[in-house]
């Protein structure tokens, strides 16, 4: 029988791979559209709240997009978008909301505490940990550089 090295070679050359010329444009368009929606909200809030700082408008837009991501996850539509758009709907902040709301919904059956609360971050946990860690490191570097 074929040995494992030859077999690994056979498998890697014959396994069907993602068709990038098909998936990349869809991801680009959907991701771009989500960003355009975010920009539309930014423009709307700037128009409605002319006294607000730019950073506060940004926070408001993030909150809106997170809400929308969670909302469409709850409606059972975001996973259908994700199946077509791939990274286009994972990378924007709506995808981050989806990664938290979907396990919260899925594990609701095991109860609020041991289900929803305990497993809410099974998908997003690594993103949060690496985000917090890297921001702490950058903060320390920034502090030291500032002193020098």
């Amino acid at each position, binding site marked *: *029988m*074929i*040995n*494992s090295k030859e*077999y*690994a070679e*056979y*498998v890697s050359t*014959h*396994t*069907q*791979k*993602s*068709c990038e010329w098909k*998936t990349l444009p869809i991801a680009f368009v959907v991701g771009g559209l989500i960003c355009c929606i975010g920009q539309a909200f930014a423009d709307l809030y700037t128009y409605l709240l002319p006294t607000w700082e730019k950073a506060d408008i940004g926070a408001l837009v993030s909150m809106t997009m997170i809400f929308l991501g969670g909302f469409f*996850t*709850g409606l*059972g539509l*975001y*996973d*259908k*978008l*994700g*199946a*077509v*758009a*791939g990274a286009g*709907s*994972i990378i924007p902040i709506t*995808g981050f909301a*989806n*990664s938290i*709301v*979907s*396990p919260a*919904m*899925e*594990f609701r*059956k095991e109860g609020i505490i041991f289900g929803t609360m305990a497993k809410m971050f099974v*998908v997003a946990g690594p993103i949060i940990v690496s985000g917090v860690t890297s921001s702490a490191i950058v903060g320390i570097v920034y502090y030291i550089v500032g002193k020098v």
Partner: protein
Amino acid sequence: MRIGKYIYELDNKIYMPYVSSICGTYEAAGNLREFVDNVMEDDLWGCMTHEMAEIKMQKHIISQCLERAKIGESEVDCIIGGDLINQIVPTSYSAREFEIPFLGLYNACSTFGEAMIVGANMLSNHQNRVICVTSSHYATAERQYRFPLELGTQPTPSMQWTVTGAGCVLLDKNPSNSPYIARYVIGRIVDLQCSDANNMGAVMAPAAFDTIYKYFKESGESPDDFDMILTGDLGRFGMDTLHYLLLQADIDVPNLNDCGCLVYSKEQKAVQGGSGAGCSSLVFCEYIYKLFESGDIKRILFVPTGALLSKDSPLQGESIPAIAHAVVIEKQR
């Protein structure tokens, strides 16, 4: 009787007078839509959780099988079965509903073959009738092995779709005009160091090759002696790979087929095809059994395949061991 080292021939044929199966709506819209036995109205089927729905599926088909056979629970000596979920909860919980002794098995997607072999052996001794049952459910498997259902991920092109379905067969030692188990081969674990949990066809094809190769080598038979060589859930890539491996060993199998490839139509976005412990039992009970009844096929080599991984084992750097059992099923001409 033993043929060679690996093939066992049953002295008394073990008959399969009754079967029952159930599938989800997605499977019912697939290739085998004309053969469907029972369909669930939706994935939850009126239950609180998908696990409960899977339990209900098994309960339903076991009860239906008993009804079709017109026998009571006391006349069945054992329920033998399994599924994919941790601690085979769906099968144990469905067996809770019956006053029938129970043996729970786990061989991943090849459990149906394992159950047939265990059942046939029991009937060769003191038992008279046993029920073999396996099931899988897309939603229960997905949450255990992959991600929450609502997570927006894109399927990898090499992935397979877990079948929502279950099948059960009543094994009976009393002769009847039904298909029977004539021989079997107990598979051995084959591991060619594949560790991609998204490419189960590649993981399991060598195991299927090992079992099929042994069968033909030791029995002296050729693929022409069968109407169909039917693997469990290799999917399209796995089946191509098995073809390749068999051709390397000078065995050409034009009549090779796969339950995972049969269950969904090309238009359905099931990627490489179906998988799961319910895949082979569903396809066997709803489709293959009917082909036997209509006389379209007389003899098959049924090779359910399984990948014996947990969600954590590939993360811990382990490769995925695979297994395939073979059962020769015939019907008197």
